[in-house]
């Protein structure tokens, strides 16, 4: 019975149907399933399926946003007093100074939260110093930069040297977004350029796990 209920929850999440997803998650909990199981069997499975779908078919922001909203709704319903503790590393996320577009950044945030990462959102139009200060203070292991305009590229190239000056050599730097993904990791002076939000997640999982990261 739980298996069918999980299937319904996963379907609702993939459909981006927040109210049905929340109702299914609450039903599962009322049936005695604990929150952690609902997250692993429901949310993480749905995100995996969404990732697989976006790899095979056309990736589109609308679908990801709707699924992300449904995930957020389920987490809020399961943890009304605040989100559960993150199970994975801390990621600092920003659109850099001069770039005021944050749709891409917000989608990355939603997906990372759903995957269990702790996200420090440094916002849009974020000065480099602020991003690095926050990354250091919050113990981020990765900085993700989303960029929709090419004019921020000189700033992106400064991130690694600034981290090195501060002795923060263990922090990985990722770039993505419509403008930045046109460039190579070498030309941006970052560790990786992600083609999509799921490519970003793959890199994070591989770079912090056992599997080696494929070079671009």
């Amino acid at each position, binding site marked *: 019975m739980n298996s069918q209920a999980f299937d319904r929850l996963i379907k609702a999440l993939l459909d*981006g149907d927040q109210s049905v997803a929340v109702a299914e998650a609450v039903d599962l909990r009322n049936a005695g399933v604990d929150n952690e199981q609902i997250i692993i069997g429901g949310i993480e499975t749905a995100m995996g399926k969404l990732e697989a779908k976006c790899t095979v078919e*056309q*990736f*589109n*922001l*609308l*679908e990801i*946003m*709707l699924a992300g*909203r449904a995930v957020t709704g389920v987490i809020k319903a399961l943890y009304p007093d605040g989100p559960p503790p993150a199970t994975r590393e801390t990621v600092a996320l920003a659109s850099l100074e*001069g770039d*005021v*577009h944050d*749709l891409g950044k*917000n989608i990355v945030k939603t997906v990372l939260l759903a995957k269990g990462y702790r996200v420090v959102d440094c916002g849009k139009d974020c000065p480099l110093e602020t991003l690095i200060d926050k990354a250091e203070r919050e113990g981020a292991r990765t900085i993700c930069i989303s960029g929709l*305009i*090419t*004019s921020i*590229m000189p700033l992106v190239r400064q991130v690694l040297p600034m981290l090195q000056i501060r002795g923060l050599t263990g922090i990985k730097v990722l770039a993505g977004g*419509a*403008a930045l993904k*046109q*460039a190579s990791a070498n*030309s941006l002076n970052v560790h990786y350029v992600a083609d999509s939000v799921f490519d970003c997640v793959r890199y994070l999982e591989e770079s912090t796990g056992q599997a080696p990261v494929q070079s671009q």
Partner: protein
Amino acid sequence: MNSLQRIQAAIHFEQTDRVPVIPQVFAHAAVLVGKTLGAYIRDGETLAQCQLKAIAHYGYDAVFALMDAGLETEAVGSRLLYRNDIYPCVERYALDNIRDLDGLVVPDPNLSGRMPELLKAANILRRELRNEVLIVGCVLGPMTLAMQLMGPEKALFLAADEPDLFGRVLDFATDVAISFGLAQIEAGVHTPFVFDPSASPAVVPPQFFREFLLSRLKRLFSALKSGGSLSNWLHIAGPAETIFPYYPEAGVEIANFDYCVNPMRARKLLPETCLNGNIKPLSFVEATTGDISAECAGLLAQLAPGRGYILSSGCEIPPEAKPENVAAMVSASRAKE
């Protein structure tokens, strides 16, 4: 054959003396002549003079009376944040609250925001270039303007949650585009470029395009054509192959395609539509002239023999592009003369 004749021939798949070349030079024209981007997008006279100097410098086939993606939403009532060296962004959306939809009024292009400045630029460009060169205007497509009126996240959630209501936002956006596009034609542009990057399959699925956007684009292009537009030119960014089959029904006559689209795939999907594209915009900043020349040669080899092709970038050439790279693209089109 002058530039305008060359482009008209390309649109109709007729023989041309060489392949027309239209780098999408917008604010790069300001950088080229030493003006700030801030001045360029606020003052029609400055914009026109920069465009005139840029075409004199490069020798390509079209100029653009085009400011930025905030122009229409500002005219409707959004507040923009301006800076000198980057395009403005929306600080407060005119349709922050959907309940204000009924109160929105289609702006008068002769009175609202910077629209009169853009019309002034169009007027100057036409007066100076007459019918020698294609004078291109620009209107935001319905999806992009809807997102500029509401903010992208609100717009997309509304589209999913209350599709009928979102349809009304799209209808309003289409009305704005028609009104502004017709005013541009009246002011001297030959064709208003319809810029709708947010209609990309990277943003919304193809079914959404079919159900929500196709009819609005059709209405927009039909109105522009009736108003005297030389051709219906559409730009949708990103991997747009899945929506190309809808372009003929929308009335598209020139399809700008982005760098991530395979040129021959675009030709196969749009056999009777003039194509323009698709050098990666960033290449104009980062690549060498040799890279640009080689890429252009590749495109010309694939698409020039079948006619109906305009050599171009896949989207706007970044303002900070290297001038020698833009020049390399123009030279590549002349290598076939």
